[in-house]
């Protein structure tokens, strides 16, 4: 017994010492990147993680950080597991991270209530809770450039255009194949709403997380039901499986449209030549010809400071990781300008993200002009509902199938505001915003 208590005591002491927040060097800020390079979602997660860390490393190498402030960052492996996500969040909090990017809708839902208490901004780029776009209710959560509901409405709008206008949707059957988790269920309320409004029928095909590599039964149902279009909300190993199954079942690939997370290069490649014509909605262009990406290649990847295979630079998910890092870096820059401080803290970061504005000129200066549409986040609108486009897999790479177009923001906003109000009531007492947004 005594041995044990002695042992326990010394272990506790050691632990207490090792978890103390590290002293931040003079001119640096710390960001923890929760990533997943292991587990069933690694196929998507690795590219995202590479893109994020490479861009931050490039900013440190090329510019010496943001206005001379280096970005210290490390990764925390979540394995897309909510338990580990909480652990990473607690770790990030202990180390004073500027911002938390959960990279999982489940983890996002868990940290949203904590963020306002711990005063850590949550940047869930185009995932997480759609209602969080309401900055009045969720001052600490950001989901630029678009919410899932924007994405879904853009897909429906695109389908409407293919059918010769929104009235063409009447009587159509749209299949919805989704990962049966918070992520895949998020768009369903809007989908039902739009179905009622435009008179199309929705057929749901849930894919349980543990069976995502075996979708034979779902695709058998799809073959039986013969939907006119299939919309997919997949992630990780679910995507290549679905595309393979679609090819096997000879589903018309041009009528198979995925959300942006179902748009990995490896996802589509898995379908072979048969995947040609598969579409996915997107908010970033592919390709490695952008000056910033060339800098990453030169300063980080070719210099041996990253494990990224050079061939994956410019792929869809890699570029998306870069976009996430870009938001963080520009958020830091904006916060520095607004506060006049060089080394900012998490509360300043929130201010920076809330006033984030990346216009064409800024994109040109960064070296990513054309890769993303200009974005603007405001106090009241933490998403912005920015333009999207549809990309198409040509058998080898993604190509743009449409120009940038706006999602059905006017349809989404009322439902979104209602959802945000519901969230606040069901989680009462929900903290109110300290500083009210200016009315506009």
């Amino acid at each position, binding site marked *: *017994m*005594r041995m*044990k*208590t002695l042992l*326990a*005591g010394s272990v*506790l*002491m050691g*632990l*207490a010492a*090792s*978890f*103390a927040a590290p002293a931040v060097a003079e001119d640096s800020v710390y960001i923890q990147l929760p*990533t*997943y*390079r*292991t587990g069933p979602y690694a196929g998507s997660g690795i590219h995202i993680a590479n893109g994020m860390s490479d861009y931050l490393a490039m900013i440190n190498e090329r510019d010496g950080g943001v206005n001379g402030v280096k970005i210290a960052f*490390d*990764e*925390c*492996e979540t*394995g897309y597991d*909510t*338990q580990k996500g*909480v*652990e990473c969040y*607690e*770790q990030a*909090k*202990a180390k004073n991270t500027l911002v938390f990017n959960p990279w999982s*809708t*489940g983890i996002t*839902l*868990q940290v*949203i*209530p*904590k963020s*306002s*208490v711990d005063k850590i901004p949550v940047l869930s780029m185009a995932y997480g*809770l*759609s*209602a969080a776009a309401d900055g009045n209710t969720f001052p600490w959560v950001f989901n630029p450039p678009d919410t899932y509901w924007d994405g879904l409405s853009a897909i429906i709008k695109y389908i409407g255009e293919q059918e010769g206008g929104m009235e063409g949707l009447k009587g159509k059957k749209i299949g919805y194949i989704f990962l*049966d*988790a*918070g992520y895949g*269920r*998020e768009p*369903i*309320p809007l989908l039902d709403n739009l179905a009622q409004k435009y008179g199309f029928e929705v057929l749901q095909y*849930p894919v*349980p*997380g*543990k069976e995502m590599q075996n979708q034979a039964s779902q695709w058998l149902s799809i073959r039986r039901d013969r939907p006119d279009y299939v919309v997919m909300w997949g992630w990780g190993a679910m995507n290549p499986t679905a595309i393979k199954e679609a090819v096997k079942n000879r589903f018309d690939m041009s009528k198979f449209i995925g959300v942006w997370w179902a748009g990995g290069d490896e996802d589509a490649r898995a379908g072979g030549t048969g995947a040609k014509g598969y579409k996915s909605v997107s908010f970033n262009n592919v390709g490695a010809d952008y000056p910033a990406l060339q800098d990453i290649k030169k300063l980080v990847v070719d210099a041996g400071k990253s*494990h990224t295979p050079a061939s994956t630079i410019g792929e869809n998910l890699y570029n998306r990781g870069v976009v996430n890092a870009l938001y963080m870096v520009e958020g830091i820059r904006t916060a520095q300008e607004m506060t006049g401080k060089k080394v900012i803290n998490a509360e300043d970061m929130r201010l920076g993200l809330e006033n984030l504005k990346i216009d064409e000129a800024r994109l040109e200066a960064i070296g990513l002009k054309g890769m993303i549409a200009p974005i603007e986040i405001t106090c009241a609108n933490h998403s912005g509902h920015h333009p999207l486009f549809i990309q198409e897999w040509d058998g080898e790479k993604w190509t743009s199938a449409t120009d940038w177009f706006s999602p059905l923001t006017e349809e989404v906003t009322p439902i979104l505001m209602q*959802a945000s109000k519901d969230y606040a009531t*069901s*989680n*009462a*007492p929900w*903290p109110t915003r300290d500083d009210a947004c200016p009315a506009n």
Partner: protein
Amino acid sequence: MFYREAGQYKTTYAADQQIFPIRQDRIGIGVILVLALLLPLVASEFMLSAIAIPFLILALATIGLNILTGYAGQLSLGTGAFMGVGAYSCYKLVTIFPEVNVIVHILLSGVFAAAAGVVFGLPSLRIKGLYLAVTTLAAQFFLEWCFIRISWLYNYNASGAIEVPGREFFGTLITGPAAGGTTRYYVVLAIVVVMTLLIKNLIRGRIGRQWMMIRDMDIAAELMGVRPLVAKLSAFAVSSYVCGVAGAMFVFFYLGASEPAVFSITLSFQVLFMAIIGGLGSLVGSFFGAAFIWILPILLRVGLPALGVDIAAETVFQVAQMVIGALIIFFLIVEPHGLARLWAIGKEKLRVWPFPYA
């Protein structure tokens, strides 16, 4: 030399029947309890929220499984689902009766889990061993399916998740995001200690002995007057009750919000491994097992980079997995009856120390 009961005379029945008959054990337990109470003074928020709280909760879940598998001998793979029943019923209770104290809800939510446990325990009257494991596996899948499909359970939340509202206990916030780590830790500690004590006494008494008789030889037990129906179903009920309370605490005091994936088969296996590594049929083993499976990987993940080893996050993760796997094999080869048995052997050795003979 120091750890010996020589000279400690028992002069009353109460003294003879107490849980820790040896004085040194009582002192040791007292010291551990005091240390546990003092922990928030030295521990950081991370240690409390990410290590201590889930460790205690999972230890309680392991105790729940141990009642069923370790004491009553009924193999179960449905622990995660029973924990889920506790969590979802607690969430429903809290939202339907917001004015009732959340501690009451947490203790009540176990009742629903117990009911589910009894229903899925019925096959145990006919089948045993691995076959029973399969039926509990069915419980796991069926209940998980319910958590996903029955939207009433999560109040029709669009994301299918349950979120924990802030609730007070005598004026202090104990649940929800605004509740501090220290407060939550003390609440969890109190519930876990009290429940462990109750279960210890249950096991030492008539009911626990019935369970062990059923485990050791059910026909003999039946001939001696133990009713298998009552014994087996009560084991399922008590076990599921404890698991349900642990599940409710897991969401309310640790996760803060959860989706059905939390209560998947992975959690069942996690708890089962804790029970096996710790030692089946031992309460202290439940704590050892929970510490081994929960704390050790975190220590490795946090400790390796803190030591200055510069390796990527996913490598740390995989190294930790490999080390844990190797240690599980090592401990099971050294002592198939788990860490609790090692602990017991250590105590035996300590009693005769420094002499190699008694």
